[in-house]
């Protein structure tokens, strides 16, 4: 019973926190959706633990907790990979922008020198 309440509380807190971040425009939808789905799933299984036990009996996992841990881990790894992907993309783009800024700055100065000379 305590575990159930703990699960429900954790899910609700995550949901409210992510939702408020989304509302204030700090978090973008594509990331928020994932976390909202995450907390939704936790909430569902906290309220109906029998659902988890039922799934376990179907796919043949002895301990429902193990299934929970496994799925959680896979999801978290996926999130981490997604973040690395986004980060790499942004790094490339920022560097690209820096290069363009540098070249534009140079061009601007050349034009200014040209103007002053005329």
């Amino acid at each position, binding site marked *: 019973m305590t575990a159930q309440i703990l699960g429900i509380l954790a899910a609700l807190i995550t949901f409210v926190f992510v939702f408020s971040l989304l509302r204030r425009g700090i978090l973008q939808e594509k990331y928020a959706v994932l976390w909202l789905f995450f907390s939704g799933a936790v909430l569902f299984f906290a309220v109906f633990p029998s659902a988890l036990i039922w799934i376990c009996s179907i796919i043949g996992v002895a301990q429902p907790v193990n299934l929970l841990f496994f799925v959680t881990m896979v999801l978290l790894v996926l999130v981490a990979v997604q973040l690395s992907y986004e980060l790499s993309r942004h790094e490339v783009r920022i*560097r690209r922008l*820096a*290069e363009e800024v*540098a070249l534009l*700055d140079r*061009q601007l100065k*050349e034009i200014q020198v040209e103007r002053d000379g005329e």
Partner: protein
Amino acid sequence: MQCRRGEHSQPPLQHRRWTSVARVRARRELVAIPAWNESGSIADVVTKVREHRPQADILVVNDGSTDDTAQLAEQAGAAVVSLPFNVGVGGAMRTAFLYAKRHGYRAMVQVDADGQHDPADLNRVLDGLDSADVVVGTRFHPNSMYFVGGPRRWAMILLSKTLSRMNHGTISDPTSGFRSAGPRAIDLFAVDYPAEYLGDTVGSLSIAIRNGLVVSETPVTMYFRQTGRPSKNALWSALYLGRASLAIIATSLKRTYTSRGDSA
């Protein structure tokens, strides 16, 4: 104003500035010097480059320096492009390649700002472009004063063997930053030049080879850096080799550019 600009493929300013130079010389050359806080040596390097290769234009890519590297380079007579923050040698070099491509340079040579490279070798490194797309200045030749020992040497030999094999021709010093690029290499590197550590040296060679460019080498003199370098031990060499291998593998997996060109 707008229709006048349309007549030129290049921005009108550059066009005017370099027509006289282009008429005299068949191949316009750019000496690119990536510099990050090199106020102690940059003016000297620029002056020496002008001495040894007076016909070449000099571009200093100021890689987010916090000292007066940019001003000193300008005073010494170089054109300066300043990056808003430090992006590393790879990023600085790609900026230089973009600059070279957009301004129609037919040859570009990279020289370090710390005085490690001898501008007296510029002619040799640039002349090699007559029969190659990329010419790497190598420290390892019978008359070299450059000495590397221990695990670091083995790491360098292994790298050199790998790239030489890929290239079907010797590249004895793949980590050398003293190198030149012809028009085909400029086009390629303006689009794709690795920014990671060792990517700018080893990785870029692997990209060049994979895209069918001809890579050759020529002996050069290199000085030890003035400022103190950390000692290189076995662990360092292992990490170094690992990162270099990663750079080669990563670039080997990349797609090649069959239609090189306008995306830059």
